[in-house]
Protein backbone atom coordinates (compact mmCIF):
# COMPACT_ATOMS: atom_id res chain seq x y z
CA UNK A 1 0.00 0.00 0.00
CA UNK A 2 1.29 3.48 -0.78
CA UNK A 3 1.90 6.12 1.86
CA UNK A 4 -1.17 8.26 1.21
CA UNK A 5 -3.39 5.17 1.33
CA UNK A 6 -1.91 4.20 4.68
CA UNK A 7 -2.34 7.72 5.99
CA UNK A 8 -5.96 7.76 4.86
CA UNK A 9 -6.62 4.45 6.52
CA UNK A 10 -4.97 5.45 9.79
CA UNK A 11 -6.92 8.70 9.90
CA UNK A 12 -10.18 6.87 9.16
CA UNK A 13 -9.59 4.33 11.92
CA UNK A 14 -8.68 7.07 14.38
CA UNK A 15 -11.73 9.18 13.54
CA UNK A 16 -14.05 6.17 13.68
CA UNK A 17 -12.69 5.00 17.03
CA UNK A 18 -12.87 8.50 18.46
CA UNK A 19 -16.47 8.90 17.33
CA UNK A 20 -17.48 5.54 18.76
CA UNK A 21 -15.35 5.91 21.91
CA UNK A 22 -18.33 6.52 24.27
CA UNK A 23 -19.90 3.27 23.13
CA UNK A 24 -16.66 1.28 23.20
CA UNK A 25 -15.71 2.70 26.57
CA UNK A 26 -19.13 1.77 27.94
CA UNK A 27 -18.68 -1.82 26.75
CA UNK A 28 -15.19 -1.88 28.28
CA UNK A 29 -16.60 -0.77 31.65
CA UNK A 30 -19.07 -3.66 31.56
CA UNK A 31 -16.14 -6.07 31.99
CA UNK A 32 -14.76 -4.31 35.06
CA UNK A 33 -15.38 -5.17 38.67
CA UNK A 34 -16.97 -2.36 40.70
CA UNK A 35 -13.70 -2.20 42.58
CA UNK A 36 -11.65 -1.60 39.47
CA UNK A 37 -14.18 0.90 38.15
CA UNK A 38 -14.18 3.08 41.24
CA UNK A 39 -10.59 2.75 42.41
CA UNK A 40 -8.71 1.75 39.29
CA UNK A 41 -7.37 -1.43 40.90
CA UNK A 42 -8.74 -4.91 40.53
CA UNK A 43 -9.64 -7.23 37.74
CA UNK A 44 -11.64 -7.67 34.60
CA UNK A 45 -14.63 -9.93 35.01
CA UNK A 46 -17.73 -11.43 33.42
CA UNK A 47 -19.55 -11.23 36.75
CA UNK A 48 -21.64 -8.22 35.67
CA UNK A 49 -23.18 -10.27 32.88
CA UNK A 50 -23.82 -13.15 35.28
CA UNK A 51 -25.47 -10.70 37.70
CA UNK A 52 -27.54 -9.05 34.98
CA UNK A 53 -28.83 -12.42 33.84
CA UNK A 54 -29.27 -14.12 37.22
CA UNK A 55 -30.25 -11.35 39.60
CA UNK A 56 -31.80 -8.78 37.31
CA UNK A 57 -34.06 -10.93 35.12
CA UNK A 58 -32.23 -9.87 31.97
CA UNK A 59 -32.44 -13.32 30.42
CA UNK A 60 -36.21 -13.03 30.58
CA UNK A 61 -36.10 -9.53 29.04
CA UNK A 62 -33.85 -10.87 26.29
CA UNK A 63 -36.34 -13.65 25.62
CA UNK A 64 -39.26 -11.18 25.58
CA UNK A 65 -37.44 -8.89 23.15
CA UNK A 66 -36.72 -11.82 20.85
CA UNK A 67 -40.37 -12.93 20.88
CA UNK A 68 -41.72 -9.44 20.31
CA UNK A 69 -39.21 -8.40 17.64
CA UNK A 70 -39.47 -11.79 15.93
CA UNK A 71 -43.27 -11.71 16.02
CA UNK A 72 -43.43 -8.18 14.63
CA UNK A 73 -40.93 -9.05 11.89
CA UNK A 74 -42.83 -12.12 10.71
CA UNK A 75 -46.26 -10.48 10.78
CA UNK A 76 -44.97 -7.25 9.19
CA UNK A 77 -43.29 -9.13 6.39
CA UNK A 78 -46.34 -11.34 5.78
CA UNK A 79 -48.81 -8.43 5.63
CA UNK A 80 -46.44 -6.21 3.63
CA UNK A 81 -45.49 -8.87 1.09
CA UNK A 82 -49.12 -9.73 0.36
CA UNK A 83 -50.17 -6.10 0.09
CA UNK A 84 -47.12 -5.11 -1.96
CA UNK A 85 -47.81 -7.94 -4.38
CA UNK A 86 -51.43 -6.87 -4.82
CA UNK A 87 -50.40 -3.20 -5.28
CA UNK A 88 -47.69 -4.04 -7.80
CA UNK A 89 -49.56 -6.57 -9.95
CA UNK A 90 -53.32 -5.99 -9.92
CA UNK A 91 -55.73 -3.30 -10.99
CA UNK A 92 -58.58 -3.07 -8.54
CA UNK A 93 -61.06 -0.48 -7.43
CA UNK A 94 -59.74 1.64 -4.55
CA UNK A 95 -56.17 0.47 -5.04
CA UNK A 96 -54.55 3.90 -5.02
CA UNK A 97 -56.60 5.05 -2.06
CA UNK A 98 -55.71 1.97 -0.01
CA UNK A 99 -52.06 2.26 -0.99
CA UNK A 100 -52.14 5.92 0.02
CA UNK A 101 -53.60 5.07 3.42
CA UNK A 102 -50.96 2.42 4.05
CA UNK A 103 -48.04 4.67 3.05
CA UNK A 104 -49.47 7.64 4.96
CA UNK A 105 -48.99 5.71 8.21
CA UNK A 106 -45.28 6.38 7.67
CA UNK A 107 -45.88 10.07 8.20
CA UNK A 108 -48.24 9.84 11.15
CA UNK A 109 -46.47 10.76 14.39
CA UNK A 110 -46.78 7.78 16.72
CA UNK A 111 -47.65 9.71 19.87
CA UNK A 112 -51.21 10.37 18.69
CA UNK A 113 -52.10 6.67 19.00
CA UNK A 114 -50.64 6.06 22.46
CA UNK A 115 -53.57 6.94 24.73
CA UNK A 116 -56.29 5.32 22.56
CA UNK A 117 -54.27 2.15 21.99
CA UNK A 118 -53.60 1.92 25.70
CA UNK A 119 -57.34 2.28 26.43
CA UNK A 120 -58.34 -0.28 23.80
CA UNK A 121 -55.76 -2.81 24.92
CA UNK A 122 -56.70 -2.32 28.57
CA UNK A 123 -60.36 -2.90 27.69
CA UNK A 124 -59.67 -6.26 25.99
CA UNK A 125 -57.06 -7.32 28.54
CA UNK A 126 -54.07 -7.26 26.20
CA UNK A 127 -51.78 -5.06 28.31
CA UNK A 128 -48.78 -6.96 29.62
CA UNK A 129 -49.07 -9.61 26.91
CA UNK A 130 -46.95 -10.43 23.86
CA UNK A 131 -49.95 -9.78 21.60
CA UNK A 132 -50.32 -6.33 23.15
CA UNK A 133 -46.68 -5.54 22.42
CA UNK A 134 -46.71 -6.95 18.89
CA UNK A 135 -50.03 -5.94 17.27
CA UNK A 136 -49.68 -2.12 17.11
CA UNK A 137 -46.27 -2.47 15.43
CA UNK A 138 -47.30 -4.87 12.66
CA UNK A 139 -48.54 -2.54 9.90
CA UNK A 140 -45.44 -1.24 8.17
CA UNK A 141 -45.94 1.38 5.49
CA UNK A 142 -42.26 1.57 4.68
CA UNK A 143 -41.93 -2.19 4.11
CA UNK A 144 -45.02 -2.18 1.90
CA UNK A 145 -43.76 0.75 -0.14
CA UNK A 146 -40.25 -0.66 -0.44
CA UNK A 147 -41.38 -4.17 -1.45
CA UNK A 148 -43.89 -2.82 -3.96
CA UNK A 149 -41.07 -0.92 -5.66
CA UNK A 150 -38.96 -4.05 -5.64
CA UNK A 151 -41.72 -6.31 -6.99
CA UNK A 152 -42.36 -3.84 -9.81
CA UNK A 153 -38.81 -4.41 -10.94
CA UNK A 154 -39.41 -8.14 -11.43
CA UNK A 155 -40.22 -8.79 -15.10
CA UNK A 156 -43.87 -9.61 -15.65
CA UNK A 157 -42.93 -12.24 -18.19
CA UNK A 158 -41.92 -14.45 -15.25
CA UNK A 159 -45.41 -14.17 -13.70
CA UNK A 160 -47.05 -14.77 -17.03
CA UNK A 161 -45.08 -17.94 -17.62
CA UNK A 162 -46.32 -19.23 -14.27
CA UNK A 163 -49.91 -18.17 -15.05
CA UNK A 164 -49.62 -20.11 -18.32
CA UNK A 165 -48.66 -23.17 -16.32
CA UNK A 166 -51.96 -22.83 -14.48
CA UNK A 167 -50.72 -21.19 -11.27
CA UNK A 168 -53.07 -18.85 -9.39
CA UNK A 169 -52.17 -15.51 -7.83
CA UNK A 170 -51.03 -17.02 -4.54
CA UNK A 171 -48.82 -19.54 -6.29
CA UNK A 172 -47.24 -16.84 -8.43
CA UNK A 173 -46.46 -14.90 -5.26
CA UNK A 174 -45.06 -17.95 -3.54
CA UNK A 175 -43.18 -19.50 -6.45
CA UNK A 176 -42.01 -16.46 -8.42
CA UNK A 177 -42.17 -13.16 -6.56
CA UNK A 178 -40.89 -14.23 -3.15
CA UNK A 179 -37.96 -16.34 -4.43
CA UNK A 180 -36.95 -13.48 -6.74
CA UNK A 181 -37.00 -10.97 -3.89
CA UNK A 182 -35.16 -12.85 -1.18
CA UNK A 183 -32.35 -10.29 -0.67
CA UNK A 184 -34.86 -7.44 -0.38
CA UNK A 185 -37.05 -9.42 1.99
CA UNK A 186 -34.12 -10.39 4.22
CA UNK A 187 -32.88 -6.81 4.35
CA UNK A 188 -36.35 -5.51 5.14
CA UNK A 189 -36.86 -8.18 7.80
CA UNK A 190 -33.66 -7.22 9.51
CA UNK A 191 -34.58 -3.58 9.31
CA UNK A 192 -37.94 -4.26 10.96
CA UNK A 193 -36.37 -6.51 13.60
CA UNK A 194 -33.80 -3.92 14.68
CA UNK A 195 -36.38 -1.15 14.68
CA UNK A 196 -38.70 -3.13 16.92
CA UNK A 197 -35.82 -4.28 19.10
CA UNK A 198 -35.06 -0.64 19.91
CA UNK A 199 -38.70 0.35 20.35
CA UNK A 200 -39.34 2.12 23.64
CA UNK A 201 -42.49 4.22 24.04
CA UNK A 202 -45.17 1.59 23.41
CA UNK A 203 -43.49 -1.19 25.45
CA UNK A 204 -43.04 1.36 28.25
CA UNK A 205 -46.78 1.99 28.29
CA UNK A 206 -48.04 -1.51 27.48
CA UNK A 207 -46.02 -3.47 30.05
CA UNK A 208 -45.80 -3.39 33.79
CA UNK A 209 -45.11 -6.80 35.32
CA UNK A 210 -41.41 -7.69 35.64
CA UNK A 211 -41.90 -10.80 33.52
CA UNK A 212 -43.19 -8.93 30.50
CA UNK A 213 -40.61 -6.15 30.13
CA UNK A 214 -38.50 -5.96 26.99
CA UNK A 215 -34.75 -5.32 27.25
CA UNK A 216 -35.17 -1.59 26.60
CA UNK A 217 -37.65 -1.18 29.41
CA UNK A 218 -35.70 -3.45 31.76
CA UNK A 219 -32.53 -1.45 31.18
CA UNK A 220 -34.30 1.89 31.61
CA UNK A 221 -35.88 0.69 34.87
CA UNK A 222 -32.63 -0.66 36.25
CA UNK A 223 -30.84 2.60 35.53
CA UNK A 224 -33.65 4.90 36.69
CA UNK A 225 -34.09 3.05 39.98
CA UNK A 226 -30.36 3.16 40.72
CA UNK A 227 -30.17 6.81 39.70
CA UNK A 228 -33.06 7.73 42.01
CA UNK A 229 -31.18 6.26 44.92
CA UNK A 230 -28.15 8.21 43.78
CA UNK A 231 -25.99 5.10 43.55
CA UNK A 232 -25.53 3.56 40.13
CA UNK A 233 -23.55 0.35 39.74
CA UNK A 234 -22.11 1.49 36.41
CA UNK A 235 -20.36 -1.75 35.42
CA UNK A 236 -23.60 -3.71 35.95
CA UNK A 237 -25.67 -1.11 34.07
CA UNK A 238 -23.14 -1.19 31.21
CA UNK A 239 -23.37 -4.97 31.04
CA UNK A 240 -27.15 -4.66 30.74
CA UNK A 241 -26.73 -1.93 28.11
CA UNK A 242 -24.32 -4.11 26.12
CA UNK A 243 -26.83 -6.99 26.16
CA UNK A 244 -29.44 -4.56 24.92
CA UNK A 245 -27.23 -3.47 22.00
CA UNK A 246 -26.03 -6.98 21.17
CA UNK A 247 -28.11 -7.87 18.09
CA UNK A 248 -27.38 -4.49 16.53
CA UNK A 249 -23.66 -4.81 17.19
CA UNK A 250 -23.61 -8.38 15.85
CA UNK A 251 -25.87 -7.79 12.89
CA UNK A 252 -24.43 -4.45 11.91
CA UNK A 253 -21.17 -5.63 10.37
CA UNK A 254 -23.11 -8.18 8.34
CA UNK A 255 -25.74 -5.92 6.92
CA UNK A 256 -24.49 -2.35 7.24
CA UNK A 257 -24.62 -1.87 3.46
CA UNK A 258 -28.22 -3.07 3.22
CA UNK A 259 -29.23 -0.84 6.10
CA UNK A 260 -27.52 2.20 4.67
CA UNK A 261 -29.01 1.60 1.23
CA UNK A 262 -32.45 1.08 2.74
CA UNK A 263 -32.21 4.35 4.62
CA UNK A 264 -31.05 6.28 1.56
CA UNK A 265 -33.90 4.78 -0.49
CA UNK A 266 -36.34 5.88 2.17
CA UNK A 267 -35.05 9.39 1.74
CA UNK A 268 -35.05 9.42 -2.03
CA UNK A 269 -38.45 7.81 -2.59
Amino acid sequence: MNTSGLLLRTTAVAVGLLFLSPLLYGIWISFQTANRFFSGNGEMTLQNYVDAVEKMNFLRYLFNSLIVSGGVTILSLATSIMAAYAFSRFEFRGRDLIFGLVVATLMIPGHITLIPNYLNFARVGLLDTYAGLILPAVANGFATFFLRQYFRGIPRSLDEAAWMDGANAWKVLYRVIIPMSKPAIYAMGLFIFLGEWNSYVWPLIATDSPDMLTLQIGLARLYKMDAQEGLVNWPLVMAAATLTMLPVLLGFALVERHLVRGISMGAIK
Partner: protein
Amino acid sequence: MLVRFTPYAMVLPIVVFILAFTYWPILVSFDLSFRHWDFMSSEKPFVGLLNYSELVRSDEFWNSATITLIFTVISVPLRLALAIAIARYLTTESKTVRALRGAFFLPAVTSSVAIAVIWSWIFSTDAGVANTLLNNLGIAKVPWLQTPSLALWVIIIVNTWKQLGYDIVIYVAGLQAIPEDLYEAAKMDGGKRWHTFRRVTFPLVMPTTYFLLIVSVIESFQIFTIVDVMTQGGPAISTDMMVNMLYRTGFALFDVGKGSALAVLLFVFLVVLTVLKSRILGKRVHYEH
Protein backbone atom coordinates in the same frame (compact mmCIF):
# COMPACT_ATOMS: atom_id res chain seq x y z
CA MET B 1 -63.67 -15.43 -11.30
CA LEU B 2 -62.08 -15.59 -7.86
CA VAL B 3 -59.17 -13.56 -9.16
CA ARG B 4 -61.30 -10.41 -8.83
CA PHE B 5 -61.35 -10.80 -5.07
CA THR B 6 -57.80 -12.03 -4.59
CA PRO B 7 -56.13 -8.58 -4.43
CA TYR B 8 -58.63 -7.52 -1.78
CA ALA B 9 -57.84 -10.62 0.26
CA MET B 10 -54.16 -9.76 -0.02
CA VAL B 11 -54.45 -6.18 1.20
CA LEU B 12 -57.07 -6.98 3.84
CA PRO B 13 -54.69 -7.91 6.70
CA ILE B 14 -52.63 -4.73 6.52
CA VAL B 15 -55.78 -2.65 6.11
CA VAL B 16 -57.22 -4.18 9.28
CA PHE B 17 -54.01 -3.36 11.15
CA ILE B 18 -53.78 0.26 10.00
CA LEU B 19 -57.44 0.89 10.74
CA ALA B 20 -57.37 -0.72 14.18
CA PHE B 21 -54.06 0.63 15.46
CA THR B 22 -53.51 3.88 13.56
CA TYR B 23 -56.58 5.53 12.00
CA TRP B 24 -59.20 4.56 14.57
CA PRO B 25 -56.94 5.71 17.46
CA ILE B 26 -56.46 9.10 15.76
CA LEU B 27 -60.22 9.62 15.78
CA VAL B 28 -60.43 8.47 19.40
CA SER B 29 -57.69 10.96 20.34
CA PHE B 30 -59.68 13.83 18.84
CA ASP B 31 -62.81 12.65 20.65
CA LEU B 32 -61.07 12.26 24.02
CA SER B 33 -59.51 15.69 23.71
CA PHE B 34 -63.02 17.18 24.10
CA ARG B 35 -63.79 15.14 27.20
CA HIS B 36 -62.85 14.97 30.81
CA TRP B 37 -61.64 11.58 32.00
CA ASP B 38 -59.18 9.91 34.40
CA PHE B 39 -59.08 6.35 32.94
CA MET B 40 -61.26 5.14 35.85
CA SER B 41 -64.69 6.73 36.12
CA SER B 42 -67.56 5.37 34.03
CA GLU B 43 -68.48 8.82 32.71
CA LYS B 44 -66.51 10.79 30.16
CA PRO B 45 -68.34 14.13 30.12
CA PHE B 46 -68.01 16.33 27.02
CA VAL B 47 -66.29 19.57 27.98
CA GLY B 48 -65.84 21.24 24.60
CA LEU B 49 -62.58 23.13 24.23
CA LEU B 50 -61.88 23.24 27.96
CA ASN B 51 -58.81 20.96 27.79
CA TYR B 52 -57.34 23.10 25.02
CA SER B 53 -57.98 26.38 26.77
CA GLU B 54 -56.52 25.08 30.03
CA LEU B 55 -53.52 23.83 28.13
CA VAL B 56 -52.71 27.08 26.34
CA ARG B 57 -53.17 29.03 29.56
CA SER B 58 -50.77 26.81 31.53
CA ASP B 59 -47.09 27.63 32.02
CA GLU B 60 -46.30 23.94 31.80
CA PHE B 61 -47.45 23.78 28.16
CA TRP B 62 -45.52 26.87 27.08
CA ASN B 63 -42.48 25.65 28.98
CA SER B 64 -42.36 22.36 27.10
CA ALA B 65 -43.30 24.00 23.77
CA THR B 66 -40.44 26.49 24.23
CA ILE B 67 -37.94 23.86 25.30
CA THR B 68 -38.84 21.58 22.42
CA LEU B 69 -38.46 24.55 20.07
CA ILE B 70 -35.08 25.56 21.53
CA PHE B 71 -33.92 21.96 21.30
CA THR B 72 -35.00 21.80 17.65
CA VAL B 73 -33.62 25.19 16.63
CA ILE B 74 -30.20 24.38 18.07
CA SER B 75 -29.83 20.71 17.24
CA VAL B 76 -31.13 20.65 13.66
CA PRO B 77 -28.68 23.23 12.18
CA LEU B 78 -25.89 21.71 14.28
CA ARG B 79 -26.59 18.24 12.90
CA LEU B 80 -26.86 19.40 9.30
CA ALA B 81 -23.70 21.52 9.44
CA LEU B 82 -21.66 18.71 10.98
CA ALA B 83 -23.15 16.16 8.60
CA ILE B 84 -22.35 18.05 5.40
CA ALA B 85 -18.88 18.93 6.65
CA ILE B 86 -18.14 15.26 7.32
CA ALA B 87 -20.04 13.82 4.35
CA ARG B 88 -17.79 15.72 1.92
CA TYR B 89 -14.91 13.45 2.87
CA LEU B 90 -16.94 10.25 2.68
CA THR B 91 -18.28 10.21 -0.86
CA THR B 92 -15.80 7.79 -2.40
CA GLU B 93 -16.56 4.07 -2.45
CA SER B 94 -13.37 2.56 -1.01
CA LYS B 95 -13.47 -0.05 1.73
CA THR B 96 -11.99 2.40 4.24
CA VAL B 97 -14.53 5.10 3.55
CA ARG B 98 -17.44 2.67 3.72
CA ALA B 99 -16.23 1.40 7.08
CA LEU B 100 -15.99 4.95 8.40
CA ARG B 101 -19.52 5.73 7.17
CA GLY B 102 -20.59 2.58 9.00
CA ALA B 103 -18.95 3.80 12.20
CA PHE B 104 -20.81 7.11 11.99
CA PHE B 105 -24.05 5.30 11.23
CA LEU B 106 -23.87 2.76 14.05
CA PRO B 107 -25.39 4.95 16.80
CA ALA B 108 -28.38 5.73 14.56
CA VAL B 109 -29.48 2.08 14.66
CA THR B 110 -28.44 1.43 18.25
CA SER B 111 -30.86 1.40 21.17
CA SER B 112 -31.66 4.93 22.39
CA VAL B 113 -31.95 3.62 25.94
CA ALA B 114 -28.47 2.08 25.89
CA ILE B 115 -27.06 5.25 24.38
CA ALA B 116 -28.82 7.41 26.98
CA VAL B 117 -27.45 5.21 29.77
CA ILE B 118 -23.90 5.32 28.43
CA TRP B 119 -23.98 9.10 28.10
CA SER B 120 -25.54 9.44 31.56
CA TRP B 121 -22.42 7.75 32.83
CA ILE B 122 -20.14 10.00 30.78
CA PHE B 123 -21.85 13.09 32.20
CA SER B 124 -22.34 11.73 35.73
CA THR B 125 -20.95 14.02 38.38
CA ASP B 126 -18.69 11.65 40.30
CA ALA B 127 -17.83 8.79 37.97
CA GLY B 128 -18.11 10.43 34.55
CA VAL B 129 -15.46 10.87 31.89
CA ALA B 130 -16.49 14.48 31.15
CA ASN B 131 -15.64 15.57 34.68
CA THR B 132 -12.47 13.49 34.75
CA LEU B 133 -11.26 15.31 31.64
CA LEU B 134 -12.17 18.70 33.12
CA ASN B 135 -10.49 17.69 36.35
CA ASN B 136 -7.23 17.20 34.47
CA LEU B 137 -7.54 20.80 33.32
CA GLY B 138 -8.05 21.88 36.90
CA ILE B 139 -11.79 22.54 36.59
CA ALA B 140 -14.08 21.50 39.45
CA LYS B 141 -16.76 18.82 39.04
CA VAL B 142 -19.82 19.95 37.10
CA PRO B 143 -23.22 18.33 37.91
CA TRP B 144 -24.21 18.28 34.22
CA LEU B 145 -27.56 16.54 34.48
CA GLN B 146 -28.56 18.20 37.75
CA THR B 147 -28.10 21.75 36.48
CA PRO B 148 -31.10 23.24 34.63
CA SER B 149 -28.97 25.44 32.36
CA LEU B 150 -26.74 22.51 31.30
CA ALA B 151 -29.00 19.46 31.05
CA LEU B 152 -30.59 20.56 27.77
CA TRP B 153 -27.14 20.92 26.21
CA VAL B 154 -26.27 17.40 27.24
CA ILE B 155 -29.48 16.16 25.61
CA ILE B 156 -28.57 18.08 22.43
CA ILE B 157 -25.08 16.55 22.37
CA VAL B 158 -26.34 13.00 22.87
CA ASN B 159 -29.11 13.33 20.29
CA THR B 160 -26.71 14.87 17.76
CA TRP B 161 -24.22 12.07 18.30
CA LYS B 162 -26.94 9.48 17.79
CA GLN B 163 -28.57 10.99 14.69
CA LEU B 164 -25.51 12.39 12.89
CA GLY B 165 -24.77 9.18 10.97
CA TYR B 166 -28.21 9.19 9.39
CA ASP B 167 -27.73 12.76 8.17
CA ILE B 168 -24.27 11.89 6.85
CA VAL B 169 -25.56 8.89 4.90
CA ILE B 170 -28.29 10.99 3.28
CA TYR B 171 -25.84 13.79 2.46
CA VAL B 172 -23.39 11.30 0.95
CA ALA B 173 -26.16 10.05 -1.35
CA GLY B 174 -26.93 13.67 -2.30
CA LEU B 175 -23.29 14.56 -2.89
CA GLN B 176 -22.65 11.45 -4.96
CA ALA B 177 -25.46 12.55 -7.27
CA ILE B 178 -23.62 15.74 -8.22
CA PRO B 179 -21.93 15.21 -11.61
CA GLU B 180 -18.13 15.21 -11.37
CA ASP B 181 -17.67 17.62 -14.29
CA LEU B 182 -19.26 20.43 -12.30
CA TYR B 183 -16.39 20.22 -9.83
CA GLU B 184 -13.94 20.10 -12.73
CA ALA B 185 -15.48 23.24 -14.17
CA ALA B 186 -15.19 25.03 -10.84
CA LYS B 187 -11.57 23.95 -10.59
CA MET B 188 -10.83 25.26 -14.09
CA ASP B 189 -12.20 28.60 -13.03
CA GLY B 190 -9.52 28.60 -10.36
CA GLY B 191 -12.03 28.14 -7.56
CA LYS B 192 -10.73 27.73 -4.03
CA ARG B 193 -12.18 24.89 -1.97
CA TRP B 194 -14.52 27.12 0.01
CA HIS B 195 -15.56 28.85 -3.18
CA THR B 196 -16.32 25.51 -4.85
CA PHE B 197 -18.30 24.43 -1.82
CA ARG B 198 -20.35 27.62 -1.67
CA ARG B 199 -20.97 27.97 -5.41
CA VAL B 200 -21.24 24.35 -6.54
CA THR B 201 -21.70 21.82 -3.75
CA PHE B 202 -24.01 23.71 -1.44
CA PRO B 203 -26.59 24.84 -4.05
CA LEU B 204 -26.66 21.43 -5.73
CA VAL B 205 -27.15 19.57 -2.50
CA MET B 206 -29.97 21.94 -1.48
CA PRO B 207 -32.78 19.40 -2.10
CA THR B 208 -31.07 17.04 0.35
CA THR B 209 -30.74 19.87 2.84
CA TYR B 210 -34.45 20.67 2.54
CA PHE B 211 -35.34 17.05 3.01
CA LEU B 212 -33.13 16.62 6.09
CA LEU B 213 -34.20 19.95 7.52
CA ILE B 214 -37.87 19.01 7.54
CA VAL B 215 -37.37 15.39 8.52
CA SER B 216 -35.15 16.31 11.45
CA VAL B 217 -37.48 19.09 12.62
CA ILE B 218 -40.37 16.60 12.60
CA GLU B 219 -38.25 14.06 14.44
CA SER B 220 -36.88 16.59 16.94
CA PHE B 221 -40.37 17.59 17.99
CA GLN B 222 -40.99 13.95 18.89
CA ILE B 223 -37.89 13.40 21.02
CA PHE B 224 -38.77 11.32 24.07
CA THR B 225 -36.61 8.31 24.90
CA ILE B 226 -33.25 9.99 25.55
CA VAL B 227 -34.94 12.58 27.77
CA ASP B 228 -37.05 10.01 29.60
CA VAL B 229 -33.98 7.96 30.51
CA MET B 230 -31.49 10.75 31.21
CA THR B 231 -33.53 13.45 32.96
CA GLN B 232 -37.28 12.64 32.89
CA GLY B 233 -37.76 16.24 31.84
CA GLY B 234 -35.83 17.64 34.79
CA PRO B 235 -34.10 19.16 36.57
CA ALA B 236 -36.90 21.66 37.30
CA ILE B 237 -38.64 20.81 33.97
CA SER B 238 -35.68 22.31 32.08
CA THR B 239 -35.69 19.44 29.55
CA ASP B 240 -39.42 18.74 29.50
CA MET B 241 -40.15 18.06 25.80
CA MET B 242 -43.70 17.90 24.49
CA VAL B 243 -43.93 14.11 24.27
CA ASN B 244 -42.49 13.83 27.78
CA MET B 245 -45.22 16.18 29.00
CA LEU B 246 -47.78 14.14 27.06
CA TYR B 247 -46.56 10.93 28.68
CA ARG B 248 -46.69 12.47 32.14
CA THR B 249 -50.11 14.05 31.66
CA GLY B 250 -51.67 10.88 30.26
CA PHE B 251 -49.92 8.06 32.04
CA ALA B 252 -48.71 9.50 35.35
CA LEU B 253 -51.40 12.10 36.11
CA PHE B 254 -54.16 10.16 34.25
CA ASP B 255 -55.55 13.35 32.72
CA VAL B 256 -56.74 11.66 29.53
CA GLY B 257 -58.52 14.71 28.14
CA LYS B 258 -55.63 17.11 28.50
CA GLY B 259 -53.11 14.48 27.36
CA SER B 260 -55.21 13.90 24.24
CA ALA B 261 -55.54 17.64 23.60
CA LEU B 262 -51.76 17.95 23.77
CA ALA B 263 -51.39 14.95 21.44
CA VAL B 264 -53.81 16.53 18.95
CA LEU B 265 -52.03 19.90 18.96
CA LEU B 266 -48.65 18.27 18.33
CA PHE B 267 -50.21 16.00 15.71
CA VAL B 268 -51.75 18.85 13.74
CA PHE B 269 -48.51 20.81 13.85
CA LEU B 270 -46.46 17.83 12.62
CA VAL B 271 -48.95 16.95 9.88
CA VAL B 272 -48.75 20.52 8.58
CA LEU B 273 -44.96 20.21 8.47
CA THR B 274 -45.25 16.88 6.68
CA VAL B 275 -47.57 18.30 4.03
CA LEU B 276 -45.14 21.18 3.61
CA LYS B 277 -42.39 18.62 3.11
CA SER B 278 -44.16 16.81 0.29
CA ARG B 279 -45.01 20.15 -1.33
CA ILE B 280 -41.38 21.24 -1.34
CA LEU B 281 -39.88 17.90 -2.21
CA GLY B 282 -42.47 17.12 -4.87
CA LYS B 283 -40.78 19.66 -7.11
CA ARG B 284 -37.22 18.50 -6.79
CA VAL B 285 -35.25 16.49 -9.29
CA HIS B 286 -34.28 12.97 -8.32
CA TYR B 287 -31.03 11.25 -9.09
CA GLU B 288 -31.30 7.55 -8.50
CA HIS B 289 -28.47 5.09 -8.83
